[in-house]
C-alpha cells in the first residue's frame, strides 16, 4: 500500500504548476473560479496555449500530436487544472470524435481532421441524442440514405452542447431500418455549413444558451465522411461513450467548488458570525467534504488499477453517480449560503466585465443559476439511473 506520488510524478506536478502559473490567463481563470460564462474566444485562446505546449490531446498517440501521459499524470493534470481555474475542455473534438477517428477512421480522415482539431480550426459538436432517443439512444431515427457519392440526411438531433459555435458535427444516423436497432446505425462526420442544416437554441431553466436542436433537411454528406463501415456505427458510438464517461465524476471540479464554497461561507454572516462557524452549516459542509474525500480515494483506486494495466469498467459508472451527487450538493450549499440573495437573478453581475456595485457578495450572482444548471449532471453522459443499471448488470450480475 502506497498512496504517495513517485518522485517523477511530483516533478510532473511541479511542471504543471509552473506552466499554469505562467500561461493560464488570469481573466479566464477568474471566470472559471467565479462560475462566470466563458466566451467562444476564451475557449479558443486557452486551447491554443495548450496546443502550443503540446498538452491538448492527452488521449492521442504521439504520432498524431498527442502526449503520452500515464493515468496518474492525467489525474494530476485534472486536479491542478481545476484548482487553478482552467476552463473545462470542450471534449467533442479532442476527446470524443478524435479517438474514434484514430481507431476506426481511414488514413485520409486522420490526415484531414486530426490536425484541424489540434489547431483549433474545427469546433466539433455531438449529434447523438434525439427527441425520442435519450437514455434509449439506439432508438434514434435520423435517416441517412445513400444516393450515389452522397448520403442524404433527414432528421433531428437535440441537446447539442455548444452547437452554435461548431463547424463540424459527428452524428449517429440510421442507414438500415431492416435490422435490429443497434445494427443499422452509422457514424457520419458532417460539415455544419452544409445546406439544409438549421441550429435552433434551447434555452435552459437558468436562462443559459448552452444546448441546441439541430435539424437536417435533405443534407448532402459525401460518402467519404462515413467513419468505418456502414451499419457498424453503434460499436464506434459505444467506444466513444467510454471516453465520455471518464472524468464525468468531476472530482477535481468538486474540490475547487468546495474551496469556493468555504471562502464564501467565511465571508457571509449569520447571527453576526461567519456562516462557516455556524454549527449546522459547518456540519453540512463537513459532510460533503467527507463524501468528497471518500470519492477522491475511490477515483485514485480506479486510476491506480488502470495504471497497473486494468480497464476502467462499471466502477466509473458508480463514481459518476457519487461524483455528480457531490457536485450538486456543493452547489446546493453555495445557494443556501447566500440566503435571501439566492432570489435575485442578476445577469449583469454574472458578466466578468461588470463594473457596478455588487448587490451582495461578489460571487453571489451565478450561484442559483449554477445550482439549477448543474441538475444536468445527473442527467447527461448517461443518466444516473442508466449508470446504476450498468453497475447492477456488469458488477452485480443482476
Amino acid at each position, binding site marked *: 500500500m502506497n498512496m504517495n506520488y513517485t518522485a517523477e510524478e511530483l516533478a510532473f506536478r511541479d511542471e504543471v504548476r509552473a506552466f499554469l502559473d505562467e500561461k493560464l490567463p488570469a481573466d479566464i481563470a477568474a471566470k472559471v473560479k467565479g462560475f462566470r460564462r466563458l466566451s467562444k474566444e476564451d475557449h479558443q485562446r486557452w486551447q491554443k496555449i495548450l496546443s502550443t505546449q503540446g498538452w491538448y490531446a492527452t488521449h492521442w498517440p504521439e504520432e498524431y500530436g498527442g502526449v503520452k501521459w500515464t493515468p496518474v499524470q492525467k489525474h494530476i493534470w485534472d486536479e491542478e487544472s481545476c484548482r487553478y481555474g482552467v476552463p473545462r475542455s470542450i471534449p467533442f473534438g479532442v476527446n470524443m470524435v478524435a479517438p474514434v477517428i484514430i481507431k476506426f477512421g481511414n488514413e485520409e480522415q486522420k490526415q484531414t481532421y486530426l490536425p484541424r482539431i489540434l489547431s483549433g480550426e474545427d469546433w466539433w459538436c455531438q449529434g447523438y441524442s434525439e427527441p425520442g432517443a435519450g*437514455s434509449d439512444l439506439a432508438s434514434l431515427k435520423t435517416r441517412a440514405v445513400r444516393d450515389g457519392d452522397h448520403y442524404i440526411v433527414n432528421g433531428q438531433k437535440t441537446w447539442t452542447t455548444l452547437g452554435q459555435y461548431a463547424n463540424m458535427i459527428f452524428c449517429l444516423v440510421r442507414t438500415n431500418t431492416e435490422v435490429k436497432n443497434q445494427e443499422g446505425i452509422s457514424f457520419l462526420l458532417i460539415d455544419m455549413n452544409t445546406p439544409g442544416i438549421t441550429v435552433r437554441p434551447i434555452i435552459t*431553466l437558468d436562462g443559459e444558451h448552452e444546448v441546441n436542436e439541430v435539424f437536417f433537411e435533405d443534407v448532402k454528406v459525401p460518402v467519404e465522411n462515413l467513419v468505418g463501415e456502414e451499419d457498424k456505427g453503434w460499436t464506434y458510438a459505444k467506444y466513444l461513450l467510454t471516453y465520455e464517461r471518464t472524468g464525468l465524476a468531476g472530482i477535481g471540479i468538486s474540490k475547487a467548488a468546495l474551496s469556493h464554497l468555504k471562502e464564501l461561507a467565511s465571508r457571509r454572516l*449569520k447571527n453576526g458570525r461567519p456562516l462557516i462557524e455556524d454549527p449546522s452549516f459547518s456540519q453540512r459542509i463537513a459532510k460533503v467534504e467527507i463524501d468528497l474525500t471518500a470519492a477522491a480515494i475511490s477515483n485514485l483506486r480506479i486510476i491506480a488499477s488502470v495504471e497497473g494495466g486494468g480497464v476502467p469498467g462499471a466502477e466509473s459508472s458508480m463514481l459518476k453517480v457519487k461524483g455528480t451527487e457531490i457536485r450538486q450538493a456543493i452547489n446546493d450549499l453555495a445557494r443556501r449560503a447566500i440566503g435571501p440573495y439566492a432570489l435575485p437573478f442578476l445577469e449583469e453581475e454574472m458578466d466578468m466585465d461588470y463594473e457596478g456595485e455588487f448587490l451582495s457578495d461578489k460571487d453571489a450572482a451565478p450561484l442559483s443559476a449554477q445550482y439549477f444548471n448543474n441538475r444536468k449532471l445527473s442527467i447527461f453522459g448517461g443518466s444516473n439511473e442508466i449508470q446504476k443499471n450498468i453497475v447492477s448488470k456488469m458488477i452485480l450480475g443482476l
Partner: protein
Amino acid sequence: MDFRLNEEQQMLQDTVARLVRGEYSFEKRLAFSETELGFSADFWKQLSELGLTAVPFSEELGGFGGGGVELQSVMTELGRGLCLEPYLQSIILGGGLIGQAGNDSQKDVWLSGIASGELKAAVGLQEPQSFYDLNNVETRAEKSGEGFVLNGRKAVVIGGHCADLIVVSARTSGDTHDADGISLFALSPDTAGVERRTYPTIDGAKGCDITLNNVQVGADALLGEQGKAADVIDYQAGRAIAALCAEAVGVMEMANELTLDYLKQRKQFGVPIGRFQVLQHRMVDMMSELEQARSMAILSASVADSEQSDERRRVLAAAKNVIGRAGQFISEAGIQSHGGIGMTWEYNFAHYAKRLIAINHQLGDDDFHLERYAALLKAS
C-alpha cells in the same frame, strides 16, 4: 374531525381556480413576467373585482374577515398557476402589518386601498446581513423634529419595484440583534432618499433592494408603538409563512401532475418510462412528500390567526421546514424524472421547480426553521 373545506371555502377556492385556469396559461405567465410590472395588472384587477384581494379584511373593506384557511384556499390556487401578483406581499403581509400595528387613521388611509388592490404594498423586513432573522435590524430611525430620519438598507423586497407603499423595519433603539427597539414605518417609495435597485428573481418575479439615505418621514409614518414591532413582525411573518406553505402545495401539486403525465407519455426502450420501477418509486416519494407538505400547510393555516404562542411558532417553523425540504425534493426529483426536457425554459416544469426553490429562500429556509423549532423544543 373533518378536514374538508366548508361550502364557502370551497366556493372561494373554485373561484380562484377558475380564474387562474382561464387567465394564467404558462405562455401568458412568461409574457407577464417579462413586462416592467412583472405581473398582470389585468389579472390583479380581476382578483379585486371578485373581492379576492379583500378576503382577509373586514366587511367595511369589502372582505369577510377570512382567516388562515381562506387564505390557504386562495394561495394554493395562485401557486398552481405560478401567479406573479403581489398577493402575499401586499394583501397578507402589508395589510397584516398595517392592520395589526396601525392606528385608526393609518388604517383608514391605507387598508381600503390595499383591500381593493388599488394600493400595492411591499414589505422590507430583511437586510443584507440578517440571513432570515427578522430581529437582525441595522437600519436606524432617529428622532428628527416631529418625525424620523431613516438610514440603512432593506434586502430582497419582493414586489418593492412597483409598490405604492413600503413598510420597513428600522431600529429606534438597541443593538443589531435585539428584539426590543425595532419599529415599523410605512413610506412612499417616492420619498426623497429612497433608492431602489430593481431586478428579476430566479422564479420569474421581481424585487428590489432599497437603500434609505437620510429619509425624512413624519410621525404618522410610524406604525404601532415605537420600539415594540418585533412581536407584530413575528406574528405577521407567521401568517405569511402559512400562506407560502399553501402556495407551495399548489406548486407541488402541479409539479407532480406534470411529472406523472410525463412518466405515462414518454417512451424509451419501447415502453412508457413510468413502467420502470426506479421511476415509479421516485414518483411515489414525490407524492408522499406532497402529502406531508399538505398536512403541514393545513396545520399552519389552522394556527395562522390564533393568538401568538410557542405552540403557534413551533407549528409554523415545522411547516416551513417540511415545505422547504419537500419542495426541494420534488423540484430535483421532478427534473431528474423528466430528463433534459425538465431543464428547459420552454417547458413549464422547470418554472415550478424554480418557484419551489425560491419559496425555500423566502422567510427562512428549512435549516433556519429547523433551528427555530429546536430552540422551541419542548423538554417533554
